[in-house]
């Protein structure tokens, strides 16, 4: 599926227009404008400090943007708490540091939000959680605590936890950067399956292989600006901007 067809045939899920964000005097995002369609998989690349994480954290309001508009699934992100709650329950997020809740079991981690946000009955939530843990390949770890799991397993639990809310969009903030090399693949496999299943995904990562293989579109950010965007083919073989070429030459 190319980016162009995605645009023409599918409704927009995330629309950002001229998004600005400051941390004190430092401007982290400068006029970021982008539209992401349903079922599209977008990878955000860029050197460290370029604002990639800030951008996707703005999409579920973990950071508040100061200018411009962000519309997620038809709901605009403003200071209105109800809109934020609505968007958060439809957007799943996976963090670099997993951020599992260490004091409750893996199963409770996954069922907590469905039970309390979706008001799902306990038995149903647990069945669903077990299905999800099966899907990410660790059904036998349900009764353990996060601290007893390896990094790769923890990250897969984090993915299951986000999926338990049946989100329409998944955000991944450098999901493999804190993992030992041999565990990266197991997490990327789960993400690839998810993408093939038709989930709308926005991924910040340094895994070029994943970007090349799975992404529908790649955004390249530097100093808070979108420098270049395009299909993986275009991006890796024929970049137009000098800054993109420099970046690619440094990492490939």
């Amino acid at each position: 599926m190319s980016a162009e067809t995605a645009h023409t045939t599918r409704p927009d899920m995330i629309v950002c227009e001229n998004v600005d964000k400051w941390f004190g005097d430092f401007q982290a995002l400068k006029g970021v404008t982008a539209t992401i369609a349903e079922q599209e998989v977008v990878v955000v690349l860029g050197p460290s400090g370029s604002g990639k994480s800030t951008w996707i954290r703005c999409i579920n309001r973990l950071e508040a943007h100061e200018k411009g508009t962000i519309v997620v699934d038809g709901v605009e992100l403003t200071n209105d708490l109800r809109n934020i709650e609505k968007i958060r329950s439809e957007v799943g997020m996976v963090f670099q540091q997993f951020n599992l809740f260490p004091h409750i079991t893996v199963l409770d981690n996954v069922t907590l939000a469905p039970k309390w946000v979706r008001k799902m009955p306990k038995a149903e939530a647990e069945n669903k959680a077990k299905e999800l843990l099966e899907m990410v390949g660790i059904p036998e770890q349900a009764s353990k605590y996060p601290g007893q799991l390896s990094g790769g397993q923890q990250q897969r639990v984090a993915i299951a936890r986000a999926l338990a809310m049946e989100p329409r969009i998944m955000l991944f903030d450098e999901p493999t950067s804190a993992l030992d090399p041999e565990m990266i693949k197991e997490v990327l496999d789960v993400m690839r399956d998810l993408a093939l299943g038709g989930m709308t995904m926005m991924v910040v990562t340094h895994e070029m292989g994943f970007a090349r293989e799975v992404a529908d579109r790649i955004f390249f950010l530097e100093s808070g600006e979108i420098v270049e965007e395009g299909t993986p083919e275009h991006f890796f073989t024929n970049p137009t901007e000098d800054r993109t070429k420099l970046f690619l030459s440094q990492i490939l």
Partner: protein
Amino acid sequence: MNEPATIKVESRPKEPSRTPREWIRKNLFSNTPNTILTFIFGAISIYAIRELLGFILSGERRWGAVATNMRLLMAQGYPANQFVRVWFTLGCLMALSGLSLATWRASGRLSLGKISTWTMNLGGGLALFAILAPISWASRLGWIIAAALFLLVGLSMWFGLRDSEKRFSGSVPTVWFTYGFLGVLVLSLWTVPYGHYAFVDGELIAETGRTVAMSTKLPFTVMWLILVGSYLIGTQVRQWIPIGRTKAVLIGLWFLSPFVLNWIVLRDPDFDYAHIASTDIPLALMFAIGGGLVLYLLSKPDLGEIGRIVAIIFLIFAIFNWVAAFFGWYPMLQKVRISFVLLALAALVAPNFAADKKTRLRFVASWIGLIAVSHWLITAINSPSTLKLQGPTYLGGFSLTLFVAVLTLLLSFPLGVLLALGRTSTMPIARVLSTAYIESIRGVPLITILFFFSNILPLFLPEGMEIAELAAIVTGYTLFSAAYLAENVRGGLQSVMRGQYEAADAIGLTTSQRTGFIVIPQALRVSIPPLVGQAIGVFKETSLVAIVGAFDLLRIAAYVVPSQTEFLGVKREGLLLISVIYFIVAFSMSKYSQKLEERVGLGER
């Protein structure tokens, strides 16, 4: 993505066992400074033990003063014919303990090696006592024989129970070992006549055979039987009732018990049954059914804003009732006012239960339960008590110490957590108020606060409103302790990673759900060591209530007993005894916190 098959782990090579001689050489005489230290501290310890034993066993000591006043030290002037209430209370606690031990599967086991070591240590201790104590040669011989007996039993266990690899495979459940130990203590009451006299209701009873042990051996036996019996019942209950439900019920009972049991000890309501039938029961029914109906409607899913608006109207009405009471605008039973407040609060949380029918019905059932309990309590408290207790502070001694400590800890805990949340909150008003409260309370000595609440506060209260002295003490102490508790909890709150907040937000939890499910549990487990330290402090500093006129353990031992004509000036014995009591309680708390830390540390890396 399959997990690796379980790898066979080779057991760690055992350290070669050392002979006692090698151990002593390595740990006590390894080099010159170590040897010198060993000798100096050995000499000091022997001297200290000798002096202490000399003090305890000296002919000048009148331990009879303590033994005779045991009842005074434990319960002060509590009427003897009402003691069954105290035993009933203790019995309830024993039953709860037994059930809890069975429910939480107290599965610790004591290895036989450890038990034999303990037996040997006991024998060694007795031998030391026999050598150092200033006693006659005849009794010294008796003690030496006892010591030898223990050493012999310990040694034969040590060598007889080991397997061929010099390891102890056998073990005993810790619970049963403890029960056995307590059983021996209880049995000793039937054979050893502790104490010779007893003060009962201020009179010295010196009949032969009527000792403290004699009057308590039957109740203590019953207590032991309840403890063991409820444990056995608890192990059976596991098979019939889901374990989660039993746990929930037991936790609820533990939190309710201090209030209900204190009330049983202090009050005996003289119910006016005609009034109850004509007013109290209809009122309770009205609130249970009417309120239940309202809450069922309010927990309807997709009710949206209407639910919140109704709840806020309820709250305004409930608060207005109190304002009206203050100005005397229209009469209303206190019970009705309280019920309206409860209803308003329940209406506020109703959206959290907006789910399927079962959840809503369960919510309504909880409401009916709440009304039943609260109405019963209010009726009981408002009825006059038939229990005539003497003195300004009828509760005293160890019971008073426990009463003040337990209630203060229980009440200051939620208050302290709220204050800590307030101080770390992003809302400026909550933050400023909490900070101001904490800082101003911490700037004032506890004694000042106790004086203020017991002497000055009653002057400020409106006409006709009184505050019982004990209630004043507990209130003041609670407000004091909450400020310190808040600072301990705040330390824990600050240790919760920012990522935890973000993860909770990202999965859509509301702020209160995030606080209750994610932040507080993690903050509290980090705060366990300082919180237990504070609990121990609160327990020990109850001795300050003596200053505002309460007869606590310290005051009785230091002033009451030495002023009795029979035991004029006998002070040291009592002080030594209460030191031991304080130590046992504080040390158990400390030990329990270590266990707790181990247990909650499970999920963490």
